């Protein structure tokens, strides 16, 4: 952790009653950065946000903002503004009063407040609604008011607690880009809590994946997506196909031993932390190339040795096809495992097929039960 970090969370422990929600968590955020805290429910992401906001007090550890220790500072003394999942708009105040409240507290002159409220309402497409009460607004409009109220005070850090989860899908896609564009234009530091992987990927500069109160991995969206460091992150990033293999590590390569449903393969380690033994291979449905076995058999006979360089070939049988849109999704039985694979054309159920997974899209981990923690299967929502 660098001391230059704008917002630094250091070794923070937060718990309710007996159970620890955040376990010695450290995170540093640069000025102007948009960070997404991603995780399934109960992983502690909202607790972390509320701790940063000052609504939860850490049992140990510290928080600093621009060099100032804010560990024990009251929520109103942190110059952060939070957008709540429920929006938490004050029903007895009009839109203008909601947005202008923070400025009123700062004892800004009346005309200045009016001008700023008008500016924000215009920026968020709320012009003309200033005199309405929140009850008379649509969900999307309420969300904008909540955002406008937080932006009006020009906070050092904008905290967003799943602000899009109550919007319907179509509005949500627009608002994502609007918030991101606004954040870039105003240069605000923002922390966004979400359980939606795509939302986090689209909006954030950096994704922080939380699991059981600890950071599982953090990095730019493409890094986390393409280089998951653990089975948990891989699963969260959509690589839910699991195949058990055996591997032998030699130098900077791993040799996948030929099995009943896979060919022998040599895969470059390329930074993967792996040891010899049982290997858990994970890949995304769209990462594998699906070919009927009859088509590959001919070409294989030409090659003297059926050994793949930098790609894994799996043998299986198509069990089921469906068309979710864009491409055909096949459920393929590979040994005891069932994997989902996308292909541009449908292949009849019952057809023997080979799956080719390029090394770049293949995530290899030491199989659970070999010292590593067991990995819960979870659906990336």
């Amino acid at each position, binding site marked *: 952790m660098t001391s230059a970090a704008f917002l630094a969370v250091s070794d923070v422990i937060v718990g309710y009653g007996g159970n620890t929600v955040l376990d010695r968590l450290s995170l540093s955020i640069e000025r102007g950065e948009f960070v997404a805290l991603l995780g399934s429910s109960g992983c502690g992401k909202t607790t972390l946000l509320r701790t940063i906001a000052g609504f939860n007090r850490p049992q140990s550890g510290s928080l600093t903002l621009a060099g100032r220790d804010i560990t024990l500072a009251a*929520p*109103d003394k942190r110059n952060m*503004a*939070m957008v709540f999942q*429920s929006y*938490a708009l*004050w*029903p*007895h105040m009009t839109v203008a009063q909601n947005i202008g409240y923070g400025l009123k*507290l700062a004892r800004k002159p009346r005309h200045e407040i009016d001008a700023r409220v008008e500016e924000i309402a215009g920026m968020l497409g709320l012009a003309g609604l200033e005199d309405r009460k929140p009850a008379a607004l649509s969900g999307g409009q309420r969300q904008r008011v909540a955002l406008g109220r937080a932006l009006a005070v020009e906070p050092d850090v904008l905290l967003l607690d799943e602000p899009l989860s109550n919007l319907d899908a179509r509005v949500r896609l627009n608002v994502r880009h609007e918030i991101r564009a606004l954040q870039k234009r105003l240069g605000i530091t923002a922390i966004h809590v979400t359980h939606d992987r795509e939302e986090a990927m689209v909006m954030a500069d950096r994704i922080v994946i939380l699991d059981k109160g600890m950071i599982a991995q953090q990095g730019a969206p493409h890094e986390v997506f393409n280089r998951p460091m653990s089975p948990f992150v891989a699963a969260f990033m959509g690589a839910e196909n699991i195949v058990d293999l055996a591997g032998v590590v030699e130098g900077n390569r791993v040799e996948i031993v030929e099995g009943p449903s896979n060919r022998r393969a040599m895969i470059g380690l390329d930074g993967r932390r792996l040891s010899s033994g049982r290997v858990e291979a994970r890949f995304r449905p769209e990462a594998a190339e699906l070919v009927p076995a009859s088509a590959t058999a001919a070409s294989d006979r030409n090659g003297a040795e059926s050994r793949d360089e930098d790609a894994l070939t799996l043998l299986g049988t198509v069990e089921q096809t469906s068309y979710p849109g864009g491409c055909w999704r096949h459920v393929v039985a590979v040994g005891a495992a069932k994997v989902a694979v996308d292909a541009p054309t449908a292949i009849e159920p019952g057809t023997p097929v080979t799956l080719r997974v390029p090394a770049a899209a293949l995530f290899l981990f030491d199989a659970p039960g070999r010292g590593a923690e067991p990995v819960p299967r979870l659906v990336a929502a």
Partner: protein
Amino acid sequence: MSALSMQDGRAAGKRLRLPFDLKWLPRAIVLGLVAFAIFGPLANLLLWTVAERWYFPHTLPLEYGFSYWAKVFSPRGVAWESLFTSVFIALLAVIGSLALAIPAGYALGRLKLPARGLILLVFLIPQAFPNLPVYVNIARFFYDVGLNGTIAGVVLVHVTHGLVFAVWIATASFAAVDAELEEAARSMGAGPFRAFFDVTLPLALPGLMASGIFVFLESLDEFTGAYFVGAPDVQTLPLLLYTAGAGGNYQIASITALLLLIPSIFFMLVVERFLRADVLSRIGH
């Protein structure tokens, strides 16, 4: 053939039908009796307020008039003074109990169940005791400290009496205000008190008003405590009513009762408007 028999059947049905439906009769009788039980005494009271002469065995007053109204409201009459005393005490009781019920209700409203329900239940225990021995003891104690026969003493008794309900209603009102609304205010830079006064209090106000009105009406009607602690130095309307009634002065008693009825009915309507179902439903939550 079949059409003919159907016609016959209809004709037979018509012959049996009475000019009114018999099955309504028991309901009408029960409703009538209930109405009489509720409104009978009130009608009697209203008659007494305008009766000049009325004695046994006459069913209705012998003579009607407003001379007793003039007597009650005459400048030398005690009714005005009692009315003012009563209203003054009631207002002080409202201020006193709200001053306690607002912080208590706020704390309890933010408390998690089941602790909240348990504490509220404990508050109810004093209400389970018979009033009379409690007030006799209070009166004895007030004698010792010199509070007997003072307005402050009566106010104190009424505050304790109304507090339970005031706290209950205030708790429900505060619990109905989402804690996140207050957190949002804190997040925008409001201190704890500012957030309370700008957000939580205005949103809980309808319930608090209802709670205040409740205490006001309770105080206005309260007799036992006022009798033991206040009488004869502090003369509230119920005490006046009691003296008049005990002295056989039914006209004055009835007119006083009617006076007591006015604020009750007025505030009942206000309470009905302000105490929304969603606030009431939070009491047990």
